[in-house]
């Protein structure tokens, strides 16, 4: 059974809390303000915007009290021909030391900033094309809201948060941005806006269930940490490829996605990234890891199918709970298996007598 209210509450149990998302927004806004006010760095900054699972509304709560993290793209006007990735990153060091002393560290493709309440991943890009610049500075890109918080959205330069009747402007095509790869010491292509836009469109095609299917399955994967990969964005991308459109519930979406993986991808597929088709999202995943993952999915797929087809609500809820763990709510305590439609037991006398007293 689809047990929709149970899925609703499961999803709100695994989604970032309001406090967590408020922290992300505050972290981002503070960083952005500091960058634009910093005399040495501001001449290089065109704009900053949020990307990552938070922005796409596919983030789930971090486990074990970890902080939630958010990716911030910092678009610079640095020419990738003139600056090496290292040189570009080095420009930010005085700024980081001044505002985030002892809290930042260089990572492979980004600068990690660990605050008391949130982790920011700064991803620096080289200068975009003149045409892209306009789009990158538009409200549709710069807002701090995740896709789920928006009732309407379009990747255009005229889109506005407050105005639902956006002008009839066709969606813009984003271009890949260049980000530094420190180890290889070269600039790498990435297109976060294409990922965001793809997710928005897919979610619309899935009756707004898509991002919830992703969250549910990401949570399922967290409960099954072996193998370690795929997780995060690669897992999300794969789910996106396998989730059918027009699903009527999260329960169906989850089941069909798992089943599609089982039937369509017995061996590791090549996944072309949105916006940068040359990139294989699954490049780093080994065949062994994939095989282990595939077995995990096979078991989950049959469990999900059993839960979905189960005619008894209590049994069905317990099967979903087996798949998704304790964040999936329990069935009501006073209902036994096979008691489907007649919920209120009538034969049992009430244990407490009410009324009969006056004041």
């Amino acid at each position, binding site marked *: 059974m689809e047990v929709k209210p149970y899925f609703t*509450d499961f999803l709100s149990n695994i989604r970032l809390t309001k406090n967590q998302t408020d922290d992300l927004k505050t972290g981002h806004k503070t960083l952005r303000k500091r960058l634009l006010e910093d005399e040495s760095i501001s001449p290089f900054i065109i704009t900053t915007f949020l990307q990552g699972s938070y922005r796409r509304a596919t983030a789930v709560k971090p486990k074990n009290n970890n902080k939630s993290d958010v990716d911030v793209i910092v678009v610079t006007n640095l020419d990738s021909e003139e600056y090496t990735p290292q040189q570009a990153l080095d420009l930010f060091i005085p700024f980081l030391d001044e505002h985030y002393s002892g809290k930042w560290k260089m990572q492979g493709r980004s600068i990690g900033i660990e605050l008391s309440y949130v982790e920011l991943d700064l991803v620096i890009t080289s200068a975009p094309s003149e045409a892209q610049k306009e789009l990158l500075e538009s409200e549709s890109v710069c807002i701090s809201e995740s896709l789920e*918080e928006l009732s309407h959205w379009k990747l255009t330069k005229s889109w506005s948060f407050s105005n639902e009747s956006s002008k009839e402007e066709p969606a813009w095509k984003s271009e890949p941005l260049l980000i530094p790869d420190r180890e290889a010491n070269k600039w790498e292509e990435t297109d976060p806006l294409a990922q965001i836009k793809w997710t928005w469109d897919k979610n619309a095609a899935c009756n707004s269930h898509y991002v919830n299917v992703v969250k549910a399955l990401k949570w399922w994967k967290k409960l099954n940490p072996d193998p370690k990969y795929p997780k995060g964005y690669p897992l999300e991308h794969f789910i996106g490829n396998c989730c059918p459109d027009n699903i009527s519930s999260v329960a169906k979406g989850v089941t069909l996605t798992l089943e599609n993986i089982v039937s369509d991808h017995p061996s590791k597929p090549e996944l072309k990234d949105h916006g940068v088709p040359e990139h294989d999202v699954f490049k780093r995943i080994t065949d062994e890891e994939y095989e282990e993952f595939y077995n995990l999915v096979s078991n989950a797929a049959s469990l999900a199918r059993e839960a979905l087809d189960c005619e008894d609500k209590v049994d069905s809820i317990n099967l979903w709970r087996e798949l998704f763990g304790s964040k999936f709510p329990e069935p009501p305590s006073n209902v036994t298996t096979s008691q489907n*439609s007649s*919920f209120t037991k009538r034969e049992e006398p009430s244990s407490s*007598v009410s009324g009969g007293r006056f004041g």
Partner: protein
Amino acid sequence: MTNHVVPSESLLRGRRATEFIEGITLLNDLEWNESIEKWILHCSLFSDKIKADILPKETEWYILIDNEYPKGSISFYPAKVNGFTQTFPHQMYNGEGNKAYPWRSGMLCLDTNVRTLGRFITNNEPFEEDKRLNWYVERAIYWLIAASLNNLTIDDEPFELVDFPEYSGLKLGFLENYQSFRYWNSTDIKFGIVEFSLILPGTFLVRHFKKPNGQCFREINWGQYASQFKCDNRVIGSWILLKEVPFLEPWQAPSTWEELEAVCDKQGIDLLKKINLLKNKQNYRNKLAHILLVGFPIRNKLSDEDSEIFWKGIEIPILFDFKAGFKRTHLKEKEVITNKSTHHINKYRKINWMHSFNWSKESIMSRGMLPKSLCNSKVLQIGAGSLGASVGELLIRGGVEKLGITDFDLLEMGNITRHTLLINDIDKYKAQSLADKLNRSSLHSKVTSFNGTLQYNLNHNSKELEKYNIILDCTGEDEVLGYLENYTWPHPKRFVSVSLGFGGKRLFFFNSMGLNFPNEIFKEMIRPWLIKEQDHYQGYTFPREGLGCWHPLFPARTDDIWIMAATAVKKLERIHQEQDVPILSVYEQQVTNGAFEGLKLVEEVKFNG
């Protein structure tokens, strides 16, 4: 959009449990409405058993749930879209409702009192989080089935009036009972003029029913308090008596003039014609309001015969011109002159129904009332001290209408430690202040004060005093009993003397019948008890108030006084069943090891001399 208030886990459990009811589909998840401070659950309810020609098998609903769930209220309102527009029994008036909300006003009555639903779902409301919302949802579904099958009421349940949408801020009190019902049945007068008093801001009391020609034929007999108000001549009143409750099927109050007119027409009554006839008799100059009383018979239980008239008030904006309203004819010249702010109300205009109440004694006092024999007695109470004030108040609130109070004393500050009067009564006659207070304690009481000593009043007001049939002494003064012994009443009286022992620990209740008070018998009977009393206070220094002249005070606390006053009333309740021989009853507070155990009747002896 994000909710700033998050539903509690209890509420989520309740909401999830609805998944186990077949007939409900949630259309929208719980949403917090800040302006009414409720959770809103938008859903549809379905049952195949609903008779589709009366109600759709599937209808949409808004459930308003308290944030304190599983405590607090849960209410079901039909949606404006895909709901229904009729009003059934056990439902509030199902109007359009507030413009700001997507639900109509016709809240369902689903609580335990709607016993008809108990045939399907137990009438015991559960308060567990998994069960409570479901209990309501299931009852709502059965409510819909029952409504569609015309099954919502059962014959032996109390009659429930249609729910009138009360747009008027004015309140109306009338007085009707079974006696007056028979009177209304016997008269041919079915409409006329009515007069009101304004007894509180916005609260009108019906005073006189008059014929269309202005001749008074029924004066309402209210108590002293209401009678002091004159009829308000700034208000025009009309009345019209219908043959039955005005309602539209299934059980909806007429909400517009057009609806009311149609309902009257169905009963063979030409509402407009009668109102216009009356209109011509009324003087509209300098008037503030026009109130129309619409009367109709009602009953106690659904299966009973009609037994009472109910008057529902309508506030008509003044100078409302019915002809203009309904037929759009020209206003008369005279009306135009006084007609500065005429509202041209058309027939689609909503009726301003007033909050209307039957304030008859039977109706108000259905909570609890002394036996009729005592209520109908006329009690002359001697003494308005702490005991007398308490006994008097218990009698008035218990339903005694006619009470006379004599006392010569003025109220002092020290009195109010156990007197029911107030600081602003100080230095006034106790009898006068108590009578005023008791007249304000009941719409039906007629309390008269006789300031001065009993002797003075027996000499000067004997005609007045002789109207009373119970002479109730609450003074504890031997002197008073002496006067009573020496005064011979023209008719036999019931004499009762109530007094307290030391510290209010004993109550002496003496009861006899005759033309005089049998003081010698009383003294003889109470003597052994007074000897016992002496043992208590020998060696005791009586408290004094202030300095100077030695005036001993009688020690007892208010709680002692009240419990004994209440006991005295319990005795008075049965007084008319007693024989005519003198009887002395003694009650005593029982205390063991300092713990109060109650009162005990320690003696009840009849005089056999």
